[in-house]
């Protein structure tokens, strides 16, 4: 849903310039995995605020429930049992969901005008009324986030509660988090907050603690504090160096200019035809009939 209080700075399949007169602070959600107890309160808050209700599923032998992201579950906890140091078990619990990339692969890939937008505060939002259900956004996403609804064949994902943020509230998951594992604010402040947490973790023996703000997608507006910053894949396969799929680059980098050229050529040919042959004249008899 378009929100008038947020300026749109990028819009899928649109070339006309976007507004840039106003300045908006870039926001970010920081997920401190070292403080996350996996209580799933954020999952519940997300469903409550966004009017989502996933199915009551089954247990398949893990704590992760629902089993995967869906059109009804825009965020979920992924639990990993790892032993980075022999004999020292760790239960790493990662809240998964849209990362709100600065360079969003979904938006780049999307052929439907205005189905995916990026606001001036950095939030990447899906406007499902414009979605054509092609699935290119999923190809474009390096984090495997968007999910299709069986009901309306449109793609859904976390909005970072753009509706709440637009009016000065924090996202629902942030509001509900009991341990302070989720914090929200300007991206600048969140980076600062993360630095304090990383210093603390290093003192506790996590020498590779680091902020996850991958530059391959231009940085993200959802960032993690990782105890093992050198091995993000430990956290339920969080990609180490995410980047936009080459297919999207192909589409944007080669296919699209080629197509644009094709369109341009067609227009040019039409104009040439008009100039050389002149406008099409309709016979009077034809008009009468």
């Amino acid at each position, binding site marked *: 849903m378009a929100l008038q209080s947020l300026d749109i700075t990028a819009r899928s399949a649109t070339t006309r310039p976007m507004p840039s007169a106003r300045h908006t602070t870039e926001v970010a959600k920081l997920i401190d995995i070292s*403080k996350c107890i996996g*209580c799933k309160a954020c999952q519940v808050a997300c469903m409550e605020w966004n009017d989502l209700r996933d199915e009551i599923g089954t247990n398949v032998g893990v704590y992760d429930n629902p089993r995967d992201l869906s059109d009804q579950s825009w965020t979920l906890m992924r639990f990993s049992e790892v032993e980075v140091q022999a004999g020292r078990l760790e239960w790493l619990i990662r809240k998964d969901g849209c990362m709100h990339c600065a360079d969003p692969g979904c938006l780049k890939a999307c052929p439907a005008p205005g189905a995916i937008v990026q606001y001036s505060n950095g939030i990447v939002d899906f406007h499902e009324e414009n979605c054509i259900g092609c699935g290119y956004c999923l190809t474009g996403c390096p984090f495997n986030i968007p999910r299709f609804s069986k009901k309306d064949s449109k793609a859904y994902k976390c909005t970072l509660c753009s509706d709440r943020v637009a009016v000065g509230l924090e996202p629902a998951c942030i509001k509900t988090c*009991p341990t302070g594992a989720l914090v929200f604010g300007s991206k600048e402040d969140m980076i600062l907050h993360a630095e304090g947490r990383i210093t603390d973790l290093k003192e506790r023996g996590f020498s590779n603690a680091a902020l996850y703000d991958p530059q391959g997608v231009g940085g993200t507006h959802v960032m993690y504090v990782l105890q093992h910053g050198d091995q993000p894949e430990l956290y339920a396969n969080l990609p180490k160096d995410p980047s936009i799929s080459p297919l999207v680059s192909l589409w944007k980098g080669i296919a699209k200019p080629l197509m644009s050229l094709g369109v341009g050529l067609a227009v040019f040919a039409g104009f040439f035809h008009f100039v050389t042959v002149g406008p099409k004249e309709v016979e009077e008899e034809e008009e009468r009939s």
Partner: protein
Amino acid sequence: MTNHWVDIKNADLILIMGGNAAEAHPCGFKWVTEAKAHRKARLIVVDPRFTRSAAMADYYAPIRAGSDIAFLGGVINYLLSRDSIHLDYVKNYTDFTFLVKDEFTFEDGIYSGYDAANRKYDRATWGYQLGEDGFVKTDLSVQDPRCVYQLMKAHYARYTPEMVSRICGTPQEAFLKVCEMIAGTSAPDRTMTIMYALGWTQHSYGSQMIRTAAMVQLLLGNIGVPGGGMNALRGHSNIQGLTDLGLLSDLLPGYMTLPGEKEADYQKYVEKRTLKPLRPGQMSYWQNYPKFFVSTMKAWYGDAATAENNWAYDWLPKLDKPHDLLQVFEDMNNGKVNGYICQGFNPLASAPCKVKVSGSLSKLKYLVTIDPLATETSEFWQNHGEYNDVDPARIQTEVFRLPSTCFAEEDGSLVNSGRWLQWHWKAADPPGEAKTDQEIIAGIFLKLRALYQKEGGAFPDPILNLTWKHKQPAAPSAEELAREFSGRALKDVTDPKDPAKVLVKAGEQLNGFAELRDDGSTICGCWIFSGCWSEKGNLMARRDNSDPYGIGQTLNWAFAWPANRRILYNRASCDPAGKPWDASRKLIAWDAGAGKWAGADVPDIKADSPPEEGINPFIMNPEGVARFFAVDKMADGPFPEHYEPMESPLDVNPLHPNNPKARANPAARVFKGDWATFGKADKFPFVATTYRLTEHFHYWTKHVRLDAITQPEQFVEIGEALAKEKGIRSGDHVRVRSNRGHIVAVAVVTKRLMSLKVEGKPVHTVGIPIHWGFMGIAKNGYLTNTLTPFVGDANTQTPEFKAFLVDVEKV
């Protein structure tokens, strides 16, 4: 909690053992993350499972379920043998120097006075040597072999790191690492808090587990100080209020006790409870028992309670024995109970050994459930296939379901773990025919009273004389009841030092229990709550979180019992001269200029008594100090001793291999028929432990869609080693059997349940969450308490849900 949730942020070290705060108390757990983030606190978790709390820990040590006394006894041994104790604290504020009777003995796991036939102790020898002045004899040099220090040191010398590891399965280096971290908090400027819950209470010696931990805290000087304490995390939102108000079967409000059947004489009843000081100059606050008791009886019986009729003492029931949950179901099973009223209680799911509970309910003439939900108990007679395979035609119990409101549909106060009475306001009208609990109970009472008025009956006085002066007799308001708990003056209450000075005028609300009188001039429904609703208004409704001292005590937020005090025994945060042990964490101090104790908290000491007067911090104890030696207060011994769970993988207690009487708790009550229901390790080789998950609240939230989505289906947790042995993979269905029944659930195979080496043999643990049943919208499942044994703690009779035996097989 001796302290409270917010105060956890003041800790340097946090030990979570016998609980899983991150899982069961996620909101309170935030204060652990606060302490870690802002005080650089370290977190230790000791648990049979690598829990959600363990995921947050700086150090985790595994332990066999049910062996915590061995572990903590080992910690005591470590501290005493290295003198890693807060010596000034223990010498002044505990019974270290007290001399114990010569007749008291401990031989091969059994204390003096044991009656094996009745599984009970005669506790006559469990006491102090008293001088001719009536005070306890002491030896300040602590050299006397009969002083508590020497007895304790000898008792725990057996708990060597080797022995701890043999019993607990905890690797020695892990145990020693935990000891080392804990010992660091013996410094006066370092504190540890201990957070525990049902992981300690639900054993046949649970009270003694908690005592052992309290002894560790006392040795370290960690009781009464900010960031310290023994912190029981209560489960239900108002379970603290339940015990405060005396709803346990042998209690009266404010932890007064019901008389026994031999206590027909009122004077003897109060004299026994009006405890005289056992050391010179001590407060021994229970000396005020008659004031609390008379004020309670005046609240109940009003004008009918008079000095002449001993304040209606004869109308109180006199107990033949405690009528705890297990006793009631035992009696019901024996056909001695006709009717049972379950108010906010689902015993078919919550009580041990479902087959016995179900059989017992089937023998009732009638069952009443008062609950917002259709509970398993209210539907116990229905056949729900494998999950409740009963034949309704054979059950004649008549069941009445009285729908009640839930917390959001009523006004009232809830007491949290930190003893805060927090008022809450109704948010929505109840659906359908649901009524508040007050309305339901009032309805039953008014009907009963009318019947007694009409028909007389064997003993109508206690019913007919009950005060019921409510503005709406059929629906007493929460405000009226709260004012009654807090207390009111019936006549002018004057200052004992100056009778001309009126402290509270007749008809006014009291300021606190110091104003209670034993002459019938005051009423107070629960003395420890006194002052929560004074003439200043409803203090429970306060929501001012200002923290002028920056130490998180927020005295203007709600009301904490007693006397709005946030940290119990806080006098112990100062040295004997009245100076805080740790200047950076000043809670209270003696202000010589003003001639009073003052600071961030309400002082837990006579406010104008200078330190020289020597009133010690543990004012509720007649000794004035804390007890390592519990004298005759515990049913199973003055010092905690490790015993095996009633069902254990070990045939003998490694501490007493040649004494079968000392295998399991010798004072745990076992009903005759239940011995045969206990299983042995040859058929049931694995240790089982039951617990809760953060996604659910007991058996309630399986009725809630959002909770059901996040944890939809029953599962059991099995370690990788056991899974391999049994050919079980994650997601397989497994049958878990005990000697009392079986359940079938999905297997979650995990690294988090480790196989431990106990007495040289591997011991596997099977983890069984409790939340599923045959009512609600989550996937139906088996009641976990199908499996659990019908035996409880020797002192509280809390069932042994945390350690029993099962077998597991793939289905």
